[in-house]
């Protein structure tokens, strides 16, 4: 049984008590301790910057050409914090409760409470860095609503919140680079973890420009490498987002938790054809004002604007009157799939529903008329004023939609469909964010701990920055305090030599296969298997088939993949091949995990386990645990961490 090392005491005092009693490292010793940070998204940049500020020697790595380009940059809608600036009943407890409930009672209470506690510090820190959050005319910070909550606690910067937060963290990081506390290695990818006497002591990184393998020592290693959504090939992740660093750690003994908990986001631009390389999210914030509907009649061919009000089915408002269009993502996605499967879908593929702004434009237009005291104006003026307000709130998202689809969303409803977006599963970590390997930590989306079986909107940014700014600076010290006597281990140590040899053997093996099929074609096939059988709906039969298919695909990959170019040069196909090989192994584990969990919860929907009205049916008796998988000789063994709910009483989630 896994021990998460949750501190004793009442839930709301655990973190305070922990901080008050945790071991410290004095400034002179900090200067001697080296820390490796892999990944420079919100979690990685904030951790590297904060640890550098504290005086540690940090080496940070990213595969992009600059740390500022990590995929956190693409987060659109916002970041949650229990500030209660709106005086609408928010509190630390409320944010904690919403997150636990939103996660369908599969997250760890103590971690989530800590997250809610530090959420307010994040906003203060970011404001101090000069992050230009949206403000009201009085000069104070503005808020909006996100799914699964009934308060307004989401802070935002237009539809570019992730960009602004990451630039803030990136600037803090570059400041440390200038001060010499952080050494930055861009265009580098971690390809092996180095373990010495049971402790993580470094990494082998591949310089993606020259192809050279490099050895880097660290007293501790932090993986801040994001999620694994690209296992589905098509997702809202960046093209380079991958599981490789986490997977190398998994292969070396770090348990991988809840891999089947993946989030399918309800509002994305639908697939347009076989050429499609990625999917684009339309922020959940659009559900604040947009209304989702399908025609009430099956196969209705009329253009949306010609379908009268009474012949539309606003199915979320109909099924979930209390939360309406703002139900959590898993619920909204399944509801869209249900309508499309039943033949009510729209667009050429019939795999889409409408997200309509007509009502919001009228509402905002009328509000402007009264705010500006314009009196009697024409309907056109109202529409025009309404469009201006919508443009200010969501302009960049509307532009993006128009660029991709060629349609004007101010005039015709957007067509949207669910797409893979986020992965709640990840490396298993304890309360201190430490994996099952001593000295190896996982932060942000790369770990599993805070979102249970479904993440609420605007909580990923919160968690990434919480882990990096406010959690790891404390918990890492608790480990490093005992490492002050460990001198830097020279990288000619046999463990480094062996790790580098493993990495180099694998690269040589990949390139020498010299088969017929491209890396891309394998990735597409993997994605199709996982999407069809381990996507929005899963079944025992489908999962068993998927496992067979993935195993066969793995064999085929390792005997027939073609990788052009050489090893000692910039070779993007080789980089991609290594990542796809890891995704194939992960794909099998995801199906195994989904098969083992004979219940439905959050984003994990097993067709065999649903309520009469099609909602997820949990089995708390048997499955109220974290499934942590250990890899042994290319096979997996399941370990369980039981979840004890001391404060929240798990119940059937209801958004009705």
């Amino acid at each position, binding site marked *: 049984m896994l021990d998460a090392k949750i501190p004793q005491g009442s839930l709301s005092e655990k973190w305070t008590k922990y901080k008050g009693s945790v071991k410290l490292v004095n400034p002179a010793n900090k200067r001697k301790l080296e820390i490796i940070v892999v990944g420079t998204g919100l979690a990685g940049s904030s951790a590297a910057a904060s640890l550098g500020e504290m005086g540690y020697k940090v080496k940070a790595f990213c595969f992009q050409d600059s740390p500022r380009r990590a995929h956190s940059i693409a987060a659109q809608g916002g970041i949650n914090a229990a500030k209660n600036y709106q005086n609408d009943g928010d509190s630390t407890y409320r944010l904690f409760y919403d997150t636990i409930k939103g996660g369908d009672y599969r997250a760890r209470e103590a971690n989530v409470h800590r997250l809610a506690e530090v959420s307010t510090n994040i906003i203060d820190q970011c404001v101090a860095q000069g992050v230009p959050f949206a403000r009201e005319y009085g*000069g104070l910070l503005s808020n909006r609503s996100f799914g699964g909550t009934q308060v307004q606690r989401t802070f935002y910067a237009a539809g570019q919140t992730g960009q602004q937060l990451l630039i803030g963290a990136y600037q803090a990081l570059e400041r440390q680079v200038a001060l010499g506390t952080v050494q930055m290695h861009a265009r580098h990818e971690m390809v092996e973890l180095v373990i010495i006497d049971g402790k993580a002591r470094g990494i082998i990184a591949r310089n993606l420009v020259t192809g050279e393998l490099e050895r880097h020592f660290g007293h501790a290693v932090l993986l801040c490498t994001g999620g694994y959504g690209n296992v589905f090939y098509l997702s809202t992740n960046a093209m380079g987002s991958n599981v490789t660093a986490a997977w190398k750690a998994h292969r070396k003994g770090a348990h991988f938790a809840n891999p089947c908990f993946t989030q399918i986001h309800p509002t994305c631009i639908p697939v347009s054809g076989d050429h499609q390389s990625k999917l684009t999210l339309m922020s959940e914030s659009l559900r604040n004002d947009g209304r989702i509907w399908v025609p009430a009649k099956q196969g209705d061919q009329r253009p949306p604007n010609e379908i009268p009000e009474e012949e539309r089915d606003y199915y979320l408002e109909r099924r979930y009157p209390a939360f309406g269009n703002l139900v959590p993502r898993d619920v909204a996605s399944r509801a869209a799939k249900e309508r499309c499967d039943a033949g009510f879908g729209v667009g050429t593929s019939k795999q889409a529903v409408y997200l309509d702004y007509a009502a919001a434009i009228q509402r905002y237009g009328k509000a402007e008329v009264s705010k500006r005291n314009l009196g009697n104006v024409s309907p056109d003026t109202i529409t025009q004023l309404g469009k201006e307000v919508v443009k200010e709130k969501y302009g960049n998202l509307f532009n993006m939609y128009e660029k991709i689809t060629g349609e004007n969303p101010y005039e015709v409803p957007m067509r949207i469909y669910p797409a893979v977006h986020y992965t709640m599963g990840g490396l298993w970590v304890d309360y201190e964010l430490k994996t099952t390997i001593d000295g190896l930590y996982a932060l942000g989306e790369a770990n599993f701990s805070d979102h249970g079986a479904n993440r609420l909107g605007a909580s990923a940014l919160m968690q990434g920055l919480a882990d990096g700014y406010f959690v790891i600076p404390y918990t890492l010290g608790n480990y490093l305090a005992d490492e002050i006597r460990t001198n830097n281990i020279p990288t000619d140590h046999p463990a480094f030599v062996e790790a580098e040899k493993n990495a180099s053997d694998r690269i040589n093996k990949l390139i020498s296969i010299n088969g017929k099929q491209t890396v891309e074609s394998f990735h597409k096939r993997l994605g199709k298997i996982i999407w069809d059988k381990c996507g929005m709906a899963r079944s025992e039969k489908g999962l068993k088939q998927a496992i067979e298919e993935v195993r066969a695909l793995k064999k085929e990959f390792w005997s027939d993949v073609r990788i052009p170019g050489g090893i000692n040069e910039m070779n993007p196909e080789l980089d991609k091949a290594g990542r796809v090989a890891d995704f194939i192994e992960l794909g099998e584990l995801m199906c195994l995990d989904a098969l083992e969990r004979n219940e439905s919860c959050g984003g994990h929907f097993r067709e065999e386990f649903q309520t009469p009205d099609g909602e997820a049916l949990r089995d708390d008796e048997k499955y109220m645990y974290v499934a942590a998988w250990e890899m042994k000789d290319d096979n997996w063994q399941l370990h369980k961490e039981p979840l004890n709910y001391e404060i929240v009483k798990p119940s059937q989630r209801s958004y009705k």
Partner: protein
Amino acid sequence: MQHYSMNLKLKVWRQRNVNEQGHFETYDVENVSSEMSFLEMIDVLNEQLIAKGGEPIAFDHDCREGICGMCSMVIDGRPHGPWKGTTTCQLHMRAFKDGDKITVEPFRANAFPVIKDLMVSRSAFDRIIQAGGYVSVNTGNAVDGNALPIEKDKADDAFAAAACIGCGACVAACKNASAMLFVSAKVSHLALLPQGEPERKQRVVNMIAQMDKEGFGSCTNTYACEAECPKEISVLNIARLNREYLDATLSAD
């Protein structure tokens, strides 16, 4: 929206690495759908090249939703191609028609050396930020976010400047390869906010010094940068930068 298919001729810059001489190669790409993005069209071409035993074209890209700033390319003489306010990854093939011949080159500037084919190094931008593009505040010292109200107009202007994605199109568009739009966007973002005030003078001086050191050219006010910026960052920021710089260098403390 009517979709259509087209056949294209692509003239693409190929260069093995920074030390070797580059050259143009011409490729035929058939059955390109108007619904594809420009990068998806290159994906298709690359799959064809690999199938024929050739080497795919190397290019930078990541988010493919116009925000990470990783994609580059000069398409028919314009950084990020023909659409206004659009990154290469968001450029879609309906911008072209059957039979078009399209020339694709890397961003060209001394400060952006070519890494391979269409990839360049933009690490000079990181070093400019290191010179002062931040507020010196350590984690954990912040006062309440609402302790200091900021005029909405100023906050909005700061945001508009901070929307820069650091792609380098401004440099590629400029006949002098000047980085003034990039630098001015960061200087403006922080100069407009009270948090940036204490380091305002040294920031602009240090960032300009680093910009010069990296080998970027001078600004001669052609506004090509603004015209090609995928985020439509305004040249008014350059005016503000000049004012900030004068103020910092001429005024006594």
